[in-house]
């Protein structure tokens, strides 16, 4: 027979007994199979739930901006396509356009169209690699093989034109690479499209589209994949814009911002393409947007291949290029997001200062926001779907 006093005492006793589960600090360290490079996350974990994450960057800093101060323009062109190494060519274009703007040179039409084709092929290549590596982090090992198999076709086509698969180094100030060299014989070897290029490109694009269909059938309807990615890592549009997220991540959150519709230095207005927009902003949408972008990029390449005009490859520029004084900022829609180059020139053979706004650095800045309260497996699903590359983050 318990009176009220005893009952109150008992209830107080039961409330004050709490089980302490201390937090564990887990170092998802620089060497890890799924961090796309050397990213260190110091995560405070409670069981499997993450309470706080602190990304430590800088393990891959190669000093691009400092290097650019002591190199000439052709040399920087060779270095710059290593920033985002999955899509080599797309890093060169805004840099060379910045230099051309300061110089006041307009590249010929044929050069612009070739730049367009190569940029879209770089986009296909980067997104195909994502298509392969994202399911790998979730546990499905087969899509990687399919996507890499067809990425090889695209890279072969790029090699036949430029000589390099990942680092084409094909732009020159004033256009694209005109000839194999400067001597009498080498000048005659024009680096124009080799025989069979157009047919091979069309073939490669057909193959890429069929791989997209295969990947869609393999992964998109799979309930396990949907359960792992739908509703995970939702990024609301206002948060995305405030953190400076760009590229497919932003479009997956529903913001219809694609710089390709606004650039004037590449003939995007003369080809017909759609910009896929996601609905929710979860990991599944980010994957879906990139799949559709591959298809749209193949569409662009198909149209461009029919429309290339004949003409010279390089405008008339002096042999040793000295860019006049000035500053300019050019940005482009890279596969990872918006990449910008702020070029300050004092009239020398190299820039005075080159500031690189890389897409993945801004995309990564929202990692503590988006990872709060997720489970460890979801951390990898979210990080994989953001598709950042450490070379792009740390430059």
């Amino acid at each position, binding site marked *: 027979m318990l009176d009220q006093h005893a009952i109150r005492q008992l209830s107080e006793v039961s409330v004050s007994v709490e089980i302490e589960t201390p937090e564990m600090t887990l170092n998802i360290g620089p060497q890890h199979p799924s961090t796309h490079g050397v990213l260190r996350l110091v995560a405070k974990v409670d069981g499997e739930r993450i309470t706080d994450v602190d990304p430590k960057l800088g393990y891959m800093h190669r000093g691009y901006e400092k290097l650019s101060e002591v190199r000439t323009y052709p040399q920087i062109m060779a270095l710059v396509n290593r920033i985002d190494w999955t899509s080599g060519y797309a890093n060169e274009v805004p840099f060379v356009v910045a230099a051309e703007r300061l110089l006041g040179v307009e590249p010929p039409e044929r050069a612009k169209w070739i730049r367009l084709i190569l940029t879209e092929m770089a986009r296909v290549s980067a997104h195909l690699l994502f298509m392969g590596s994202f399911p790998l982090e979730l546990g499905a090992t087969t899509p990687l093989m399919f996507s890499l198999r067809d990425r090889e076709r695209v890279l072969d086509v790029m090699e036949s034109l430029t000589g390099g698969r990942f680092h084409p180094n094909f732009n020159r100030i004033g256009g694209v690479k005109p000839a194999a060299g400067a001597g009498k014989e080498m000048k005659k070897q024009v680096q124009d499209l*080799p025989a069979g290029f157009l047919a091979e490109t069309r073939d490669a694009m057909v193959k890429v589209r069929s791989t997209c269909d295969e990947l869609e059938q393999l992964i998109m309807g799979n309930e396990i994949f949907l359960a792992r990615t739908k509703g995970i890592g939702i990024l609301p549009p206002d948060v995305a814009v405030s953190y400076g997220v760009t590229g497919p991540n932003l479009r997956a959150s529903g913001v219809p911002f694609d710089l390709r519709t606004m650039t004037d230095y590449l003939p995007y207005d003369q080809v017909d393409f759609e910009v896929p927009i996601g609905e929710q902003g979860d990991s599944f949408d980010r994957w879906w947007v990139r799949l559709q972008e591959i298809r749209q990029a193949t569409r662009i390449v198909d149209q461009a291949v029919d429309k290339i005009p004949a003409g010279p490859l390089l405008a008339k520029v002096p042999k040793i290029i000295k860019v006049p004084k000035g500053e300019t900022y050019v940005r482009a829609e890279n596969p990872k997001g918006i990449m910008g180059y702020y070029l300050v020139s004092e009239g020398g053979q190299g820039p005075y200062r080159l500031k690189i706004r890389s897409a993945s650095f801004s995309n990564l800045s929202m990692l503590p926001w988006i990872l709060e309260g997720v489970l460890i497996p979801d951390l990898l699903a979210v990080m994989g779907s953001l598709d950042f590359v450490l070379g792009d983050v740390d430059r």
Partner: protein
Amino acid sequence: MARTIIPGMIKGMSVTLRTLFTKPVTVNYPVVKEQPHPRARGVIALDQEACTVCMLCARSCPDWCIYIEGHKEEQPPTSPGGRVRVRSELDRFDIDYALCMYCGICVEVCPFDALFWSPEYEYSEYEMGEMLHQKDKLQDWLETVPDAPPLEP
């Protein structure tokens, strides 16, 4: 989850089953070698006769991996009573492939057709010192330089 289990996941399995019966795409490497395109950047070849030791390539390399030394030689005049001609001879022309970025700037700026690209790619060594190719080895690579591919009409 139970109702839609049959279509999505089983459809995916049909893709792997189909691929099980197709021919694999692997290239059986040491036995079958892939031929890269003629323009592929594999290794740089040197034509010593054409080189005039102008140092343009060494100056424009982003990595400074080309080491050149030369000396001037006097040659007798072509016609009697003429000026003594001076010609530069190459003593040393080394490219360090451990540093080389394969960017191609050196090939492009050479005004005398002395450097060429060749798509050879099998020259890896066990020691890093062997990756420095000296001028005779670079001359040997000249045989592997292909002709320029025909262009798109």
